[in-house]
């Protein structure tokens, strides 16, 4: 039995011949196994990477939504503060469309006659005067912006208490009309609604004096006003539900 445990010459020869092959093959198989393992790991890393990217995208989207919600919250908070400071009743509205033409400046809002909106009602925002209701259907209304040449608002300068009529210039600027040359108006002075027109309540911000030109001809000054409201950034508006508007037919 003891002799049988010992390799014979043939065994030894077979072992010596096959051994190197075994070594080589096992090295190759180990190497290929490690490559395969690396490849599998790489695949899982890729999947994990893809998953992490998606998670990052979700978090980024959530972050953007959160920021947008925060900004909307701040904006609506300001709007609410303004709404509480205005004479009741008031109504908030959202802009659904803008005038596509070059010649007119109007907006379409999502409040109409079924909400009590009527022609001539003033429309404002946190920054100041926006315009007034031009026409309304049951659920929508058209707002004539204060920058439209057909719009007119009775105003007063804050510092020097000079009265005038602000009219739209068809671009993002107003003209302050009917201010006598003898009246003192300063550049940068704030222009507020006077309350005399019967449309807008007194003290709403309209803009600030941008430029004053005194030509030799005529009895009035030519004054350009920079609007307080950024008309390109409008989103939410407040309608002052005033019934006795002078603009009504």
């Amino acid at each position: 039995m003891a002799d049988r445990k010992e390799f014979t010459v043939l065994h030894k020869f077979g072992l010596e011949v096959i051994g190197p092959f075994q070594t080589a093959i096992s090295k190759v198989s180990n190497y290929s196994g490690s490559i395969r393992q690396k490849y599998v790991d790489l695949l899982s890393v890729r999947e994990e990477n893809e998953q992490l990217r998606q998670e990052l995208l979700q978090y980024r989207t959530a972050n953007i939504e959160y920021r947008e919600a925060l900004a909307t919250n701040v904006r609506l908070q300001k709007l609410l503060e303004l709404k509480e400071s205005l004479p009741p009743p008031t109504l908030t509205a959202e802009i659904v469309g803008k005038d596509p033409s070059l010649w007119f400046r109007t907006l379409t809002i999502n409040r109409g006659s079924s909400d009590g909106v009527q022609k001539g009602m003033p429309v404002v925002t946190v920054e100041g005067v926006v315009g007034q209701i031009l026409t309304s259907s049951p659920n929508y209304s058209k707002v004539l912006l204060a920058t439209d040449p057909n719009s007119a608002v009775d105003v007063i300068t804050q510092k020097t208490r000079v009265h005038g009529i602000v009219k739209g210039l068809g671009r993002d600027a107003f003209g302050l009309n009917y201010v006598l040359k003898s009246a003192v108006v300063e550049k940068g002075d704030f222009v507020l609604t006077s309350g005399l027109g019967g449309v807008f309540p007194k003290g709403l911000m309209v803009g600030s004096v941008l430029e004053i030109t005194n030509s030799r001809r005529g009895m009035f000054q030519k004054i350009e006003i920079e609007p307080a409201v950024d008309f390109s950034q409008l989103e939410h508006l407040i309608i002052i539900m005033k019934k006795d508007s002078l603009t009504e037919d």
Partner: protein
Amino acid sequence: MFILIFLILGILLLVLQTTFLQLLPVWLGKPDLLFLLIVYIACQAGILRGAFVVILLGLLMDAFSGVFLGLYPVIYLLVFAFIKGISRQIAINEFAYQVPLAVISYILVGIGMFLLSFFLTPDSPPQWSWGIMLLQLIILAVIGTPVFGIFDSIMSFYRSSTASGRFPGTKSSNRFN
């Protein structure tokens, strides 16, 4: 069918113009797609059907733009009549003529809008800006060809869907047709 197709198309373009296209930066102007549709209808459609669609689109435009009701139907009808008048002289339903015709018509619309607004409210005259007008004309010239191409495909679809295959609103020379 013709009236319905172009009315729906006009409504879609109007919605696009009052919402999505308003988000474009100022230097890109306001592409007037509805005006291109008016020009296309004037070039391709017959007088009665074409004029009817143009008036309807003008009334719709009145609801979303401007201060004076009835201004857009009048202006669009004038454009329609102008193009129909020219069509007696040249074959404007050919693609090559439509873009220059749209540009010329737009200048006339601008002048018409300005004069009518001026006469309606002399104390609040509208502002004329050559810079903005030039930008609009360039935009119309650039987008004119692809937009007319889209309108052409819609028109082809309409023609193929009708049995006669004639231009809508025009009478065939074949008296037995």
